[in-house]
């Protein structure tokens, strides 16, 4: 546990330093734990754009999933839709929160079963050329 916490800390530091040197900062990335039979999970995080111009998240990938899509849940008059997004724009100096019931990364067809406290590397590809790897923690939340 201690060892894994250390690794986690290093990953977070790595992610923060890498992003800090550039324009995008990703904080609190996490994945909701699900029962083993589940074939689709969701990842959440806050993406901050520290530059003065808009930056778009174009796509995301992970070695632990066959496919990752950018999605948004929209609820209108009681009906919930999941809308696939072609990208996610973050205005200069602003944050976008990916959170339950809103924007999320839809993680499809896991290659292994994920449990609480596991760490998953997600690679985020931005339209300013930045590729950021973040360590998302699986949480029972």
């Amino acid at each position, binding site marked *: 546990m201690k060892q894994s916490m250390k690794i986690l800390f290093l990953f977070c530091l790595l992610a923060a330093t890498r992003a800090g040197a550039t324009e995008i900062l990703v904080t609190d990335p996490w994945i909701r734990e699900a029962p083993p*039979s*589940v074939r689709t999970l*969701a990842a959440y995080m806050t993406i901050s754009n520290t530059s003065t111009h808009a930056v778009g998240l174009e796509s995301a990938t992970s070695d632990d999933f066959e496919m990752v899509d950018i*999605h948004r849940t929209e609820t209108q008059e009681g009906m919930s839709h999941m809308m696939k997004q072609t990208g996610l724009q973050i205005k200069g100096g602003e944050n976008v929160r990916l959170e339950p019931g809103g924007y999320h990364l839809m993680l499809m067809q896991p290659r292994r079963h994920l449990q609480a406290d596991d760490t998953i590397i997600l690679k985020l590809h931005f339209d300013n050329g930045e590729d950021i790897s973040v360590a998302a923690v699986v949480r029972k939340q």
Partner: protein
Amino acid sequence: MRTSGAKMWVRAGLFGVVVLVMAAAGFFFLKKPALDMNVPGARSLAPPVRIPPFALMDQRGRTFNNDSLAGNWTLAMIGYTYCPDICPTTLREMSSLYKQFDRPPDNIRAPRFVFFSVDPFRDRPEELGEYVGYFHKDFLGVTGKPEEINRLVTGLGLFYIYQDPQGVFIRDVLHKPAMDNYAVVHYSGLLFITPRGELAATLQPPLATDDILAVFRKLRAYYGE
């Protein structure tokens, strides 16, 4: 002849007025006061909607029909296990609520909780059981024939439809869509069903356990156990 005809009409008219006044008085005195939910996102249905006849099954293969709803309150939602965001968000909240029911706060008899799958082509009973059981051991996962599910959901005045990965709607919910990775657009509110099997109220997400409890208490006080 004309005079007595007119008299008859006057009498009939008076009789009509008396009946109307009595009906209005009866309505006024006998009608229960409207149920004021006073919880954001909550809607009470007056009168409650009688659930149409349906026959489905739970995760253990036991019949789940109108009789299964009798005798106790039911909280329910419709969803599907491939739903990554809104369904687990609601189920997580229900799981916290049922932890409270494990040690009842004020001797409330815990309502049953039912997750009605609207994706019978991918949610087989075993997977559904594992899915709902992950959130709470007593949660029921109910599925069955596409026609039965559709009849129940539309009979409640609710709605679901399939959607391909490009976002195009697939209106036919009685047959498995051609692709594997379709999504289901569905009603996402929480349903409150009386021990007589009537839909009495709905609550829209985002759900908070306190709001669910507040609605449940009001309904129990209004309709009885």
